[in-house]
């Protein structure tokens, strides 16, 4: 892969990722509405929303809030760029984590009970999914001989047959990062709950738009990581099917579950998620997979 091609793909990724992310959000809302017997908004409603938000008057409720809204999106876009440049997967994840951390820190920098509440819960969500995601990089590296994402493309074989256990664990991560039930503990779609809007309660107007945009990038990046499980060979388009399929499972699970407690989430993630990846690593180390 030439350097020019890689840089080109990074530029395309930065431009296209939010379009895909916004579209998926729109389809999400439409499908969810249908599952609940409603008609729902038009599919491109998220774009209308974000454009409107950018046009609103900025309002600030705490000193450091703004900086962290910008840092949130800037770092996640950086992670997307490093992903497109096919860098070390662990490095991509570390940059993504730093970005994700900006959201709770921004929420904690406002003296607001709801925002603090959401920030604390966001940190617990982070505690739940970060180890799974980091650990998931290990079996991939063991199979492809190294952590650079480029290795996966040079590997020549799809990863899913050997790493399906890890893949299942990553679906848990996807549910937490997409803030879908039963893992939507840090903020809910519906403002009239004990959380109000949790971690984003104190963000409004253009800053809320930045965060929404960051979430789109974050979701597309995570779906791309899932797509890596079948990215080579003649059936490369399967990676898109896999990514979209995982996304659809999230919608479905979201609609049949209620929000659960943080301690349940942590136990489930550390128990089921981490054990699954650990088992996969163990099997690879023992030569069984």
């Amino acid at each position, binding site marked *: 892969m030439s350097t020019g091609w890689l840089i080109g793909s990074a530029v395309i990724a930065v431009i296209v990722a939010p379009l895909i992310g916004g579209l998926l959000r729109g389809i999400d809302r439409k499908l969810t509405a249908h599952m609940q017997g409603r008609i729902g908004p038009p599919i491109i409603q998220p774009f209308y929303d974000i454009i409107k938000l950018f046009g609103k008057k900025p309002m600030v409720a705490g000193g450091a809030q703004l*900086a962290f809204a*910008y840092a949130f999106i800037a770092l996640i876009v950086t992670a997307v760029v490093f992903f497109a440049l096919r860098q070390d997967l662990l490095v991509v994840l570390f940059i993504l984590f730093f970005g994700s951390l900006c959201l709770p820190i921004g929420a904690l920098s406002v003296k607001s009970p709801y925002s603090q509440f959401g920030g604390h819960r966001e940190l617990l969500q982070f*505690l739940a999914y*970060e180890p799974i995601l980091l650990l998931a990089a290990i079996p991939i590296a063991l199979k492809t001989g190294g952590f650079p994402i480029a290795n996966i493309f040079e590997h020549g074989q799809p990863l899913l047959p050997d790493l399906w256990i890890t893949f299942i664990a990553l679906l848990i991560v996807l549910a937490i990062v997409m803030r879908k039930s039963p893992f939507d503990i840090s903020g809910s779609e519906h403002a009239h709950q004990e959380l109000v809007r949790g971690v984003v309660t104190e963000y409004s107007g253009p800053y809320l738009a930045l965060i929404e945009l960051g979430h789109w990038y974050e979701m597309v990046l995570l779906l791309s990581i899932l797509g890596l499980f079948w990215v080579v060979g003649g059936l490369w388009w399967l990676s898109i099917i896999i990514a979209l399929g995982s996304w659809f499972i999230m919608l479905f699970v979201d609609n049949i579950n209620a929000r659960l407690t943080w301690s349940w989430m942590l136990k489930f993630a550390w128990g089921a998620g981490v054990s699954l990846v650990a088992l996969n690593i163990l099997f690879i180390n023992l030569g069984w997979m």
Partner: protein
Amino acid sequence: MIDSLVGLAILFPIITGLIWLLIENHKARSGVIYVTAAVLIISSIFFLRQGSLPIEYSPPPRWEWVILVANYAILAFFIFAAVKDIVQRGVSRHNILTIALTVAAGIPLAVFEFAQAPHTPLEVAPTLYIDHLSVIMCLIISIIGSLICIYAIRYMRDHEEHRIHLGELKVTTQPRFFFFMLIFLGAMNGLVFSNSLIWLAFFWEVTTLACWGLIRHDEEPQHIDNAFRALWMCLIGSVGFGLAIVLLWNSPLNTISLAEVVSNGALASPFLLLPFALLCLAGFTKAAQLPVQSWLLGAMVAPTPVSALLHSSTMVNAGVYLVLRIAPGFQGTNLSTLIAIYGGAVFLFTAIIAISQSEGKRVLAYSTIGNLGLIILCAGINTPLSIAVGIMLLIFHAISKGLLFLCAGAIEHHIWSRNIEDMEGIARKLPILTGITIAAMLSMLVAPFGVLITKWGAMEAASGIGAWSTLVLVLLMLGSGATTVFWAKWIGRFLCQSPMPGRAKREPLIPLYHGILLILIAFAVVFSILIAPVYNSVIAPSLTEAGYNAALAFSTGTGFLKSPVGIFAAWPIFIIITLALLIPTLTTRAKPEESRSSYMCGENVELGVDEFVAVADERTELKTGGFYIENTLGEGNLNRFVVPTGIVLLVILFVLAVI
């Protein structure tokens, strides 16, 4: 040349420490600190510039006698101090154990020196062995340690003024304080240069003594108790040290030269396993690993520069230094595997307990114990890559943790509290100090800083080295997640504030506080950017000297850090992330008319007033707090499980060493 350099690094601070006890004039005494700092820093850089590392050097034989006598004098002093404590304050667990363990540590040493050694004192050739690892340690001790001593000039002045104001203190006790601080630096330099295990054991005891003297400095009952606890817990390690010396002398190798023992290796000579396990025990106790972590937490009662010194450049570093030093000796054994698991367990448990801590310094202490656990984990994985990562973490941790403690001390002297809850919103009152502190926390936490680079390296090193590495990886990843939580929520407390009318005012700059902090944060940044050259110039040579193949650790094309399985584009990441953070931080300022009160369901009083309207229009204060999950993750709950786990792991360690 070399003898004078060794003399400057070891003896000079000890002599200036003694001078502190004698002279009275405050200005002259501060001058002594500056001179000592300058001499130590310059001599440590000279060591690095020495073209001919490693250096073997044996001081004249009369020094053997000095060491011999001084060693027993220190042990006798421990007993004297404990007996004095019994007389003054009655029998307690701490002073009885101190006496018992001092005797237990003295016996094997005396048996060896007076009964078994062919002549007393026994000379070992070479007595001192100075390689790149020693020089890295010497640089950490001399540069960071000296900066901490300079900071302490101001800190101790404020500290004593405050105590005099409270009526706790009448006459200054600073001479004793700086005496211990300075001999600490000298003893640490001696420790990292020693090749003779007798010399190493002696300097080991001097650091224990200095640590005891510094913890009990304020002489409240709690301080004295905690000092004795630190003393006896570290003496467990000294017992191990003494036994290791006897075992090594009576083994077929018949030597107490550390370099010779390590180069033989336990894989070829299995009888070395038990001595190695005993030396590791000594290292673990010094580094406050499980189950003796409580001594380092108790040491938090001491003035903050003491904590900074213990955690960054001395004491606990001696423990991990010893483990890294002997790691090549147990490469490839089951002992090594278990050490990796043990380090991982310490890393995870301390990170979880740290979430529950509401006292800032205790969070820092748990973070230290965890990071040392991570270094021990790296030593246990025992590949060239992991050892390189361990040494890097030692360097970066020393910088960041020294800095964090000094920040905590400076904040404490503004708000007179160590509780994180009292730090709510201090970013407004102390913007520069808080800014440096947050930067220091980020340097422990996120890419692109050095500590994160070492986490990345440790993860890559731990992947794919056998089925057991699965467990190590799980401990490492979970610990890494928990670490993030306790730092992030602390940063959140600093920043938590409502918009207030008017601009925030910058706090007055105090040269000895802000100046030292800025130097250290500059170190953290510069070393992170220049990690590739730093690796090439000092870490790769120390790997080669220890017998590892440095080509299997990192390669450093174009300033990137390449492990055999991955790549960290250190400086590009640094530039991108710094721009992503700094540009918004420096350019976005909310205009006053954009400020709003936080959402309180419309019941706010007015902007800039942290109150809301409750029942019958009563104005009620709006309060927020941090989260600690004390019930679930608190010490009371977890220590019941964590301490036995530590003991069990150590028992397994010795079982593995014996069979």
